[in-house]
């Protein structure tokens, strides 16, 4: 067997700590190695050509590349091997970057370790078998989880490309947070006006199956072949009969028991309701927790007024299963809530701003509702406590973000812009009003964003004060805001009529639970992790599951929409072929040795082990053996470690290969 070794400097990444020429020289002496070189960038075009040429000219049977992690470039080098005519699985990598140069300082020791790792890889590759990729079929249907602007955009893009979409939204209507917004930066166009047509388009699209008031409960299977269980919560309304006339809503006698969450608690809603007038679908929901019927079996006014007999008090939740090829996560965010938290909570509220006890100290979304033409004040600036027009409004940025003590370390990214917009909207309507913004830094990167902030300051006269506010308290109907202008180096005290806290975007409620259900990783804040922060920002690390919008990190509307369209494009890439190629790193059972104990079946986390009957010539079952479903097997190796008779092997990582590696140390 003729083996070639290729040592990469990775620019200076490896070369700084590892003496690469020495590693390459040492490898020349390994048994079986007939060719060994080092080069600055092995992954570059000339680097790959070096590999290809060597394979052809020296007639190599297998190669070892000593470079970065296989996660980074295994595909690259296998492809090069294939191009030069050898089986791609006869290419092995020794990780000289993540495992050596990035974690060691001493050149001598690092070089020795690099030589050892290379020797191990050589011993392994000698025992590699040519493998063929596995092909599995693709279900060309997409599940979009979350019906905010990101989910809507993703669903429309995929559906318009001609593929079926199932859009699941946990609220009774799609629209998400964007439907709550007044006007949007930096152009100040009305949020509802640009969003509602899209919502209707989703509803009417023949390729989109819309499931509102529903949640994903279980995800099984793998890329191209997911089986998804969705819980359709009981609306207690027969959607097929309801015309959305709204009579039940207007006649419901429960008027002041439940806060309207769409209005951010600044209004009430009846027991039977749609979240907002432009809701899609325009089908109400009955809230069991406040409806009189569920308390004592009485009332039933809605039943009497409904001309279509659509009220169904006894309707139950329904579980629906869907066959899905790709999943787009678009579950969005939630706003940091300033109220007092339990003592054991990771985040703390802002006691110095009153923990939300002051009625006129509101958060960003509450301000949006006050500013919105469809909001509780019909877009007139009236403060919640007494309905008076506030003449002095203070905006406090970075509430819950950039705060290790009470919230999260990260920058919530959109608050600088939404605060500038808030102050601007206020000044546009209350001409004699004063608006102050307390900020730490103004982060306005984005097309026309900085210009927008300058407009607020220069044209609308919003006063920006650089400093965090220490305390807000009420005195004679005014809110005393204690700050410091750190530029002037002077204390600032403002008697405000209303205070708006630019609360941070944080991970959606139960985001981590959903991530576990779906099977994707998430960060310490609960945001979903992308596969690579730069080169694969749309993909999760799980094949076939993509990310869109603020579920990945704080994002504004343009970014969420861009990401949604990108995720849609990614699903189309997946749907571009009928069969999917998968790595052949799967378990294989030696049926002669298998004793049929099925311990492997018990431990397999992917339910990939099946029972296979071995029959004699007469069709009589002689024994049962384990059988691996290639489609489901993820190559984790748990079965091989468990098997008492050592009759399961992981392709590409056989016991022989691993032991040879260890023996080479």
């Amino acid at each position: 067997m003729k083996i070639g070794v290729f040592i990469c400097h990775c620019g200076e990444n490896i070369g700084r700590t590892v003496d690469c020429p020495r590693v390459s020289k040492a490898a020349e002496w390994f048994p079986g190695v007939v060719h060994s070189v080092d080069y600055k960038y092995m992954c570059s075009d000339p680097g790959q050509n070096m590999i290809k040429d060597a394979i052809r000219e020296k007639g190599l049977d297998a190669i070892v590349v000593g470079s970065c992690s296989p996660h980074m470039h295994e595909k690259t080098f296998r492809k090069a091997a294939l191009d030069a005519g050898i089986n791609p699985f006869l290419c092995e990598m020794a990780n000289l970057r993540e495992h050596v140069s990035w974690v060691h300082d001493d050149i001598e020791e690092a070089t020795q370790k690099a030589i050892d790792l290379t020797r191990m890889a050589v011993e392994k590759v000698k025992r590699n078998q040519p493998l063929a990729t596995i092909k599995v079929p693709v279900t060309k249907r997409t599940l979009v989880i979350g019906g905010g602007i990101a989910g809507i955009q993703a669903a429309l893009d995929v559906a318009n490309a001609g593929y079926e979409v199932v859009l699941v939204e946990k609220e009774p209507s799609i629209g998400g947070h964007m439907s709550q917004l007044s006007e949007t930066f930096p152009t100040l166009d009305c949020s509802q006006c640009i969003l509602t047509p899209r919502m209707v388009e989703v509803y009417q699209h023949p390729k989109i199956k819309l499931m509102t008031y529903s949640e994903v409960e279980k995800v099984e299977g793998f890329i191209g072949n997911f089986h998804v269980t969705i819980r359709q919560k009981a609306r207690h309304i027969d959607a097929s009969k309801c015309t959305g006339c709204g009579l039940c809503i207007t006649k419901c006698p429960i008027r002041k028991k439940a806060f309207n969450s769409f209005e951010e608690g600044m209004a009430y809603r009846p027991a039977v309701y749609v979240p907002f007038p432009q809701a899609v679908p325009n089908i109400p929901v009955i809230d069991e927790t406040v409806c009189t019927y569920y308390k004592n079996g009485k009332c039933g006014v809605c039943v009497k007024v409904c001309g279509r007999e659509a009220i169904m008090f006894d309707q139950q939740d329904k579980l629906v299963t869907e066959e899905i090829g790709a999943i787009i996560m678009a579950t969005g965010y939630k706003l940091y809530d300033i109220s007092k938290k339990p003592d054991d909570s990771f985040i703390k509220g802002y006691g110095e701003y009153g923990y939300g006890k002051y009625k006129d100290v509101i958060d960003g979304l509450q301000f949006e509702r006050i500013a919105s033409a469809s909001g509780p004040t019909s877009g007139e600036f009236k403060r919640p406590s007494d309905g008076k027009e506030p003449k002095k409004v203070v905006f406090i940025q970075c509430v819950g973000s950039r705060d290790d003590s009470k919230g999260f370390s990260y920058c919530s990214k959109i608050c600088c812009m939404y605060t500038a917009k808030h102050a601007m909207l206020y000044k546009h309507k209350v001409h004699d009003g004063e608006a102050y913004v307390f900020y730490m830094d103004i982060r306005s990167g984005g097309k026309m964003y900085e210009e927008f902030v300058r407009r607020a300051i220069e044209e609308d006269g919003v006063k920006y004060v650089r400093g965090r506010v220490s305390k807000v308290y009420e005195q004679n109907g005014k809110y005393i805001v204690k700050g410091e202008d750190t530029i002037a180096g002077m204390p600032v005290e403002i008697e405000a009529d209303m205070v708006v806290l630019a609360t941070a975007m944080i991970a959606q409620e139960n985001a981590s639970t959903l991530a576990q259900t779906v099977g994707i990783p998430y960060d310490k804040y609960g945001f979903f992790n992308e596969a690579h922060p730069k080169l694969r920002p749309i993909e999760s690390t799980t094949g076939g599951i993509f990310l869109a919008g603020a579920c990945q990190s704080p994002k504004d509307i343009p970014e969420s929409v861009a990401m949604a369209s990108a995720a849609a494009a990614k699903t189309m890439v997946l749907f571009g072929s009928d069969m999917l190629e998968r790595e052949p790193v799967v378990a294989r059972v030696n049926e002669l040795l298998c004793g049929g104990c099925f311990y492997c079946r018990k431990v397999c986390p992917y339910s990939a082990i099946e029972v296979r009957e071995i029959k004699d010539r007469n069709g009589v079952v002689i024994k049962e053996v384990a059988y691996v479903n290639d489609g489901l097997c993820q190559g984790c190796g748990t079965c091989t470690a468990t098997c008492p008779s050592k009759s399961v092997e992981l392709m590409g990582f056989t016991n022989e290969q691993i032991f040879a590696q260890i023996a080479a140390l």
Partner: protein
Amino acid sequence: MENNLKAGYFPGCSQTGTAREYDLSLRSVAEKLGTELTDVDDWNCCGATSAHVTNHTLANALAMRNIVQAEKQGLTEMVAPCAACYNRLIVSQHETQIHPELKKEIEAILDSKIENPVQVMNIVELFTKIGADKVKQAVVKDLKELNAACYYGCLLLRPSDITHFDDAEQPTSMEELIKLTGAKPVEWNFKVECCGAAHSIARKDIVVDLSKKILDDAVAHGANVMVVACPMCHTNLDMRQKAIKKEYPEHKEIPVLYLTELIGLALGMDEKELGINLHTVKFELKKETA
């Protein structure tokens, strides 16, 4: 009375002088509630502000000598009714617990090992330990005529990650306690604002301004009495009202009681017994006609 509490007592210097009534009222109330207080043997000054602002080793050593004294006495719990002493003791204890090199240094200075088994309590925690039920049962006089502004000041609660006591910004534990006496706590703004503390003598002007702001807010929110748990706060809020009056003739006086005095009143003791007559701003409960 069964299950009576036994605890160590670190009076602190003020309690032997300007805050004599705090000591007096605490001892009387404790006795009435069947709590046995054992004074820390030959305690010394905790070092107060003056030590930690000029020499942190000295500050820690002075505070820790008291902890070691209590340790040697076999005390496991110890109340430091002065919020400033409480703060110094608990902070030094914490610092020596988490910084081994500091602990070694202090041990060398004190020529004694530090084991740190003594749990330092503030005055509110002492009553929590005694138990709300017990206090409530002992109440013989309803103090419903009192609208009290509970003043925590700074050092009772801070640093919150060391004291682990109540909410750092919107505390309620003193309110809960005085409710047992029938007194009505008022909601007000400056429960945790600083009164100027140790600047009482050297920068009286600052203390006058800060205390005035605190007292005014309490009055504005309907308080007819202030309740404090710190001799420094008491000095600044009570004694300095004379100076405030001089500076601001329109100043509306408000009596300032120690928490122990207020509880003492509810337990049936009279003003004199509790040392309330020693205050600058006079206070007397309405005389009952019945």
